[in-house]
């Protein structure tokens, strides 16, 4: 299959890293709680060491590598008749959505995305929801407009 042409904004990597950091901070609590109990009550020091190593691997994967990989693999394409989305690091998934199945489009922007001048576009069909995350603000707005002009749901097909 031909590779899709459009990519999402590279600033997505930074945003995803921040999200991962927040998640890992919560995980840190869990890790340290377990470590504390292991150290204090069970005296299993080697297990604690293993946990520390595990945490470091977890950290480097989810904060350093994963967002980069995810961004690299995120692609999409919008054409008059259909749109395509391709994503996924471990599981590569390519989805085709015929334009006349699109029911409505959402423009979404959380505080963090806003700070980075990014926005997500969410596409709804009668059966599924698809999100293109972290596009450049202006691009996202434009995309919403383009999709809604292309999308004219045929009444017969719902």
């Amino acid at each position, binding site marked *: *299959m031909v590779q899709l042409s459009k990519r999402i904004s590279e600033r997505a990597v930074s945003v995803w890293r921040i999200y991962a950091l927040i998640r890992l901070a919560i995980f840190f609590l869990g890790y340290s709680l377990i470590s504390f109990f292991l150290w204090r009550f069970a005296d299993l020091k080697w297990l604690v060491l293993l946990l520390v190593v595990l945490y470091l691997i977890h950290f480097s994967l989810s904060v350093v590598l994963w967002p980069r990989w995810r961004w690299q693999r995120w692609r999409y394409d919008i054409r008059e*008749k*259909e749109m395509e989305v391709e994503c*996924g690091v*471990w*599981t*590569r*998934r*390519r*989805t*085709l*959505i*015929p334009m006349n*199945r699109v*029911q409505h489009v959402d423009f979404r922007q959380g505080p963090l995305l806003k700070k980075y001048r990014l926005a997500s576009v969410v596409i709804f*069909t*009668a*059966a*599924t929801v*698809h999100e293109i995350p972290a596009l450049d603000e202006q691009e996202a707005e434009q995309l919403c407009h383009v999709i809604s002009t292309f999308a004219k749901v*045929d009444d*017969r*097909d*719902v």
Partner: protein
Amino acid sequence: MFEKKRLHPITIVSSIAKQWKDLLLPLFMAVVLKARDVSMIWNIAVPAVALFYTMLAGFFTWLRFTYQIDDEELRIEHGVFVRQKRSIPFERIQGISLSIGFFQRLAGVVQVRIETAGNELGKAEAVLTAVTKEEAEQIAQHIRRAKEKGDSAEALPLAYRSTPPDDIAFSLRFRDVFLLSATSGGVFGALAAISAFFSQLDDFISYDVLYRDMQGVIRNALDGVLALVVLFLVAYALSVGRHLLRYAFFTVQNQKETIIISRGLLEKQLLTVSKKRVQGIIMKENVIQRLLGYVSVHIIHAGGSLDGGESGSIVLCPFVKKKRAVSVILACFPEYCIHQHFQPLPERARVRYMLRPVYVLAIPLGAVAYFFRPWGIGLLLLLLVASYLGYKSYQMAGWAILGEQLALRNGLFRIETMYTRKHRIQSMAVFATWFQKRKRLRTLSVAVMPRMFFKVTDVDENEAEKVYTWMQ
């Protein structure tokens, strides 16, 4: 004609009965389990308050529910504290289902369920619990008139009147209900229910005593077998009863724009489905049914669950010979072609299919086998069975494209074949895990309804691409 009306007062009784039915088990538990220390509050006041509350609630819900049929729309107001108003234009109504339950029969009324083409599938439904037959007929006529006025000349006939039975496409034979109960696995469901019931009663029946008595009764293995046979017969009878209630007098009428399905023994149900809203057809067959050459046919219907089953799926034929199923579908939906020529999966997918059920079972079975040594080891033979099932599943799985039609088939215990048409598909995805990519395999997934995805795993890379480009 335009006045606000209330439902027939039998609604109060039926809603109270329904709530009591739901309350019965928790109340029973609460009262009887605490029976050791009898207290007035717990044993009498709590149930009394609960029952009284449901009666009040039933009455006021009925009192505050009004409906109004005018020329263009059906207006419903309801809500005891927060009033809700809903108006449903007749021309937007997509399906209507009538049912006559126990209470409805007592009062000589019918229940009307209405389904519209709302965006939120399965939610835009209105239920009129008890209206007179004349009113139901009137609603149906309004719908018909509104449809005729609109651009589409679609009529939604209400088959409530005894329609001439010349358009019957399918009816379930009485003896098939027994076969259906025997083969559908409902027996095992009933067995599970029976055992669950007895385990619930654990606190009341002292099994130790019972067991000692039983030992007196069951002197030899033959009696044990007999007891087992009796248990199975009871389970089978329960299953037959359940299926009889649900599927007795099951008939499908095929009209120009609609399908009318009527069924039920105690609770009569009649539902009208617009053919335009049918997104696809599924044929299901489990291992036993497959051996006998029987299938069940379901239609994927864009809309709420009119027949009270799982949303989006309506039973067209509960149990039918495969050949007959093909002709029924052809009669009702001529645009579909039910065939058996499926593109098989590549050979390199076979190992994956044979190993997949083994992965899932290996750990639990291994653990059980370990704890019940040495005889437990025999359980590991089940892994071979699972692997064989996986092999069968590999042989069955496949896809087929025929003009505008896509068919997907998969399943382990129950083979499911889905036929849909290109313009019904909402989105299509092709994906691959790292392992699949290494073997140049893909998973094909098609969405036709919310929460209804059909997948075929391990399709050849190039063939998956072929299906994908067919969609473009």
